């Protein structure tokens, strides 16, 4: 392993001793991302806050356009400057620095090196004209001071870590010679080769079939335990969340609507949206045979024309008069849960 990891663990140790819980590596506070468009300014991510500790997986769920990917790209500062900006109150604290205020040059030293990202499409995430090994090597060349042979050893080691069979041969192959699952393994190897503290996985398994999906998720789980990396797992697949997340953040129309441990969210959803989402998972078994799959009626409100009250009002089964006029605040519940609802559903917290 490189020197960097040992350096990181040294800095992390005193903090860990101070608090009984693990100290957050990344804490996002009041993140708001706005886009300038022809029809005016829209706030795609509105006042999102969360904390992430080492070795923890935070799942972010929500339907298309709810701001999941924009959140991750805001953290990485990958959004085009020309038409987007973070609101000034946004804070992305990472290792004592506010990423929202770093210069491009400082940000480049962090990207890929300390915060890495895996993309959705393994088919197009690798450059088709270079070998897999070359691309891994490139990342190391850019971020570390290792020499050529050390780098190559590390490339092979990483490919071996992600359980790619025959890494010596595969490293010399081009992306089109690998299957989708193999490419996603390579992407993970690439993301992890500089020992990042935070790994953002933006729908890492969407393009894969189910068996490969579970293999990849298990691999990410194992690596997380081994390398103590914090993972932000962005997906719209609740099955993926159930398998690998520790905590879940549910987003709706740019807002956090509910956050809690994966157990609480799945067994005792408090926000009507979460409840409806969980209901609309198809269930197997003879009991459900011939039954209509419950869905959430209506569509997500347009970001150009948001309601004054609760953003879920139009589609909510539990709506009341209060919901239309005033937007609920994010309220703290027991067990480190937060819910944005005037009338939370579900039973008492267990």
């Amino acid at each position, binding site marked *: 392993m490189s020197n960097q990891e040992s350096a990181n663990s040294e800095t992390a140790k005193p903090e860990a001793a101070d608090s009984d819980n693990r100290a957050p590596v990344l804490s996002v506070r009041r993140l708001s991302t706005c886009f300038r468009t022809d029809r005016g300014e829209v706030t795609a991510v509105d006042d999102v806050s969360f904390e992430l500790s080492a070795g923890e997986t935070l799942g972010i769920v929500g339907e298309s356009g709810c701001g999941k990917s924009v959140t991750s790209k805001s953290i990485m500062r990958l959004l085009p400057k*020309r038409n987007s900006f973070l609101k000034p109150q946004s804070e992305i604290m990472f290792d004592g620095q506010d990423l929202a205020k770093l210069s491009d040059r400082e940000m480049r030293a962090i990207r*890929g090196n300390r915060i*890495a990202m895996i993309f959705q499409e393994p088919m*197009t995430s690798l450059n088709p*004209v270079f070998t897999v090994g070359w691309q891994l090597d490139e990342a190391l060349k850019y*971020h570390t001071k290792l020499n050529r042979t050390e780098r190559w050893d590390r490339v092979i080691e990483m490919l071996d870590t992600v359980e790619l069979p025959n890494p010596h041969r595969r490293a010399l192959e081009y992306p089109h010679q690998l299957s989708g699952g193999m490419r996603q393994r390579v992407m993970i190897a690439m993301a992890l080769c500089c020992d990042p503290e935070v790994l953002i996985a933006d729908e890492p398994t969407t393009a894969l079939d189910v068996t490969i999906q579970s293999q990849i998720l298990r691999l990410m789980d194992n690596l997380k335990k081994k390398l103590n990396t914090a993972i932000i797992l962005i997906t719209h697949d609740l099955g993926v969340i159930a398998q690998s997340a520790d905590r879940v953040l549910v987003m709706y129309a740019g807002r956090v609507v509910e956050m809690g441990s994966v157990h609480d969210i799945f067994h005792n959803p408090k926000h009507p949206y979460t409840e409806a989402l969980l209901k609309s998972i198809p269930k197997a078994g003879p009991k459900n045979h011939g039954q209509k799959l419950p869905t959430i009626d209506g569509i997500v409100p347009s970001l150009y024309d948001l309601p004054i009250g609760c953003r879920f009002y139009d589609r909510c089964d539990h709506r009341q008069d209060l919901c239309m006029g005033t937007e609920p605040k994010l309220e703290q519940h027991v067990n480190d849960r937060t819910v944005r609802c005037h009338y939370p559903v579900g039973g008492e917290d267990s």
Partner: protein
Amino acid sequence: MNFGFLQTRTARKFLRNKLALGASFIIAIYFVFAALVMCGLITLPQTEERIGPKHIPGFYGHARPEVRLEQVASYFEKVEIALDSTSPEATLAEIKFGELRVANKSLEELRQIVDDGWVFYDELTEQENLDVSPNVIPMIEKFEQKKAELFAPMTDFQATKQMIYLSLGTDRQGRSIALRAIYSIKVAFQIGAVTSLISVLMGSFLGAAAAFFGGWVDHVVIWLYSTFSSVPNLVLLVVLAYTFSGTMFDGTLVPVYVSFCMTFWIGPCRVIRGETLKIKELEYVHAARAMGFNRVYILLRHIIPNTAHLMLVNFSLLFIGAIKSEVILSFLGLGVKKGPSWGIMISQAKSEVITGYFWQIGTATIFMVGLVLAFNILTDALQDILDPKHV
């Protein structure tokens, strides 16, 4: 020597492709000639030196006694003029028909041979129906023997050389067409390689940068290429070529290079810009940014290599385009100024064609078509071969 590279996938695919092999063989031959010219192993005789007086190609001449007769007579004419001049020895010594030199005989002897020759000539011209009469051919052969007496005997090597010089005939000034056509290969390669290389590189980098950085860079590049492409290509070439006349670059190939590069970069620029607009939204470019690479690095190492196939195609298209444009420009008298080129040859041949002397224009055209065709086939084959997805 290590022949390991022949075992690679690309090499095997190349060796299996017969068209590509054939085309590259033809290009190799052209290239060898170009290299020989460049090394000075094939040199052009001085402009005033004639290989032979108005020769027609060997394969064509023997069919027509009338033409053959005229051709032999012109040698006699030349020697007779020299004999009649004020200083016969000096003038005779100056006569060089390629490898042919006037025989080392006394003036009287030479005069005698010339007179004998004219007797044959008169006899032959008095014949009616020269083309069909049966005893004409032996008489022409005797006439040609007289011509041979006039000149010093050649060694086998010299004779072969002379045969090659005359193999495709001469132009009106008696210059060897074969030699001029071969010499022009060098000019064609020079213009093709220099202009296509520069304009493809220039166009690609401008196009890729415009698309990748957007904003004012994009505006400037688009403004530039729409301005250049709104002027008719040939008019711009003519204007630029004129601009250079009279400067220190007049007479060199520099005006041609500059004028071609200034108009040719537009094609690759537009194509690569479009491709980059597509590529920059692909996930691997986002992934590269997420790896923390800076934008210039991403442009050079991730985007430009992915447009290599387009650069290759554009290179060959422009190579061919440059050769063809050189021909047009030289035809108009604005291109190559010194030395021959296929364009100059075609331009000079325009008056010959009317009188039936087709070999100059024919040779230049066939040489050009051969190179252009071979290049097209090779590029097409290379595209398949270099595409890793193509099995």
